């Protein structure tokens, strides 16, 4: 008994020492604050990372996940949720961590390769089996009698990608900004319901059976097939879409306070490793690594992808012109238009 107690106190002592010298095996906790559709991806990735970190970092990494709308998640972090890393839907929401609370440096997006986006996605169409309305490309969405389901770009990050992809298509085929606006306005006239988030829209389309085509993240479109039955829907890839780059970053102020910088940085770097890229590919995100991408090439249809930086001059500009109050999206809903 005495011996046992002695052993225990020695252990406590040892732990105390090792914590101060940061040498030995301890648990380390990480909080990854992410957006809705990455749930399955990070469940798998966290397991792989825990094994990886046991070998390389000699620590047991316990990673917790938090999911929700991208903007809401960013606000939670700004208001004090102690996220070590954030993995959100668009750079605009991570920019806010700098703009609103200075939790990260302004140039956060240059710290990791590929605009700090270890995997990408794009926007595709999900249509009902047999494609009864024969929807092939963006210009089919503005035809009378076609109902389009998308969430509201003002409340959903994913919906902003949808809108911008449609804009880019129109710009390419119709030329001017005015024509593009006309095109997008026409498209939104065909939208009967604007859910506040992507999962809500998917429910409207899949379970309420409303609409002919659902504008979706590519990975969500694959998941919909898994969830609601592969015989119910088809994926249609349009001629042009947008390269959606969901970026990641360490939250500097939080990791410095929690003493987790090393493991948090390793966590994000592991996303870029072969193993991390494999997991992304398996979960229907397009891997960045050319070798892994080649392996998954049969899954993802080749499509012309424009980027937000080339086409719109970055998120800050795009947000301001299109989605802020008084922007173009508001204009197309003004009565009389």
């Amino acid at each position, binding site marked *: 008994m005495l011996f046992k107690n002695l052993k225990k106190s020695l252990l406590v002592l040892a732990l105390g020492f090792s914590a101060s010298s940061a040498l030995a095996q301890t648990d380390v906790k990480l909080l990854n604050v992410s957006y809705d559709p990455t749930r399955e991806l990070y469940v798998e990735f966290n397991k792989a990372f825990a094994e990886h970190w046991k070998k390389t970092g000699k620590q047991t990494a316990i990673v917790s996940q938090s999911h929700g709308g991208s903007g*809401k998640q960013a606000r939670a972090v700004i208001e004090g949720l102690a996220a070590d890393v954030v993995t959100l839907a668009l750079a605009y929401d991570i920019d806010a961590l700098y703009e609103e609370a200075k939790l990260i440096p302004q140039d956060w997006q240059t710290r990791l390769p590929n605009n700090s986006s270890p995997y990408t996605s794009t926007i595709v169409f999900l249509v009902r089996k047999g494609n009864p309305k024969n929807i092939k490309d963006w210009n089919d969405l503005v035809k009378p009698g076609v109902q389009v389901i998308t969430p509201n770009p003002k409340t959903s990050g994913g919906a902003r990608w949808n809108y911008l992809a449609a804009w880019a298509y129109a710009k390419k085929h119709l030329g001017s900004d005015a024509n593009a606006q006309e095109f997008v306005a026409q498209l939104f006239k065909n939208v009967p319901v604007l859910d*506040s988030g992507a999962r809500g829209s998917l429910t409207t389309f899949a379970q*309420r059976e*409303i609409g002919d085509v659902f504008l979706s993240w590519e990975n969500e479109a694959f998941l919909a097939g898994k969830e609601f039955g592969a015989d119910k829907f088809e994926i249609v890839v349009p001629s042009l879409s947008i390269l959606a780059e969901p970026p990641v970053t360490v939250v500097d102020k939080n990791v410095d306070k929690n003493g987790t910088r090393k493991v948090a940085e390793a966590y994000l770097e592991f996303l870029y490793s072969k193993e991390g890229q494999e997991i992304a590919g398996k979960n229907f995100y397009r891997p960045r690594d050319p070798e892994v991408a080649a392996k998954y090439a049969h899954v993802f249809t080749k499509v012309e992808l424009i980027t937000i930086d080339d086409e719109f001059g970055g998120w800050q500009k795009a947000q301001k012109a299109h989605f802020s109050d008084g922007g173009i999206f508001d204009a197309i809903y003004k009565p009389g238009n």
Partner: protein
Amino acid sequence: MPSIRKPSVIPGFGLSLGFASFYASLIVFIPLAALFAKAFTLTWDEFWRTALDPQAVASYKLSLGAAFIGAGVNLIFGFIVAWVLVRYHFFGKKVVDALVDLPFALPTAVAGIALTALYAPQGWLGQWLSPLGIKVAYAPLGVVVALTFIGLPFVVRTVQPVLEELEREIEEAAASLGASRWHTFRKILLPAVLPALLTGFALSFARGVGEYGSVVFISGNMPFKTEITPLLIVTKLEQYNYAGAAALAVVLLGFSFVLLLLINMLQYWSSKRTGG
């Protein structure tokens, strides 16, 4: 000099008043003060521009209108439900009584999804309504339905105890003195339950004005058509426009405050008139 203190079974007036004001400040007053402080980081000009934006005005009309209609429906049907629960004994009464509380207990998002599933054009009820040209889900009517649903317990639970207190003998006395049923209802019953009814109406209305979770699923959220004010507040937050969100919240609060004030005045007037 008469004291404001009245003898009471619980001693310690000073202590309990101190606690009450501290508690009320902590739970209600401080958050409200923070809200106003946030809203008035805007200049007057910005505040009014946010508050009077046409899209915001359209949303007030929907939020307040639907909450008003919902509370009105509850006023009538909630009264009937309370009446039946108090005055009659029937098989399954306990179950009905418990069901009334369900809208309190149910997470609002669940309520919204359930109502949408029912009333969507393919839903159980929607498939019968849509051939008649009645659109519930994804229309203003859907907002009314959701707000009626969540507001029902407020009316029933405020009216029920008052009805229980009301003695049947009074009605019998009225009848034996020759009053018609309608007369008895109007002159005897209604004045007694009116204050409780109005309170229930006000609670149901106030709850409906701020409701977000259940409405966003059923309304369809089309700007200028089925967009409620709380959703506009969320869209402001999405743009990290905290002050703009607070400004809209202050407007809603103002409307609710005015309505509660009116109802209080009405209650005061009615209790004076009936000498209660």
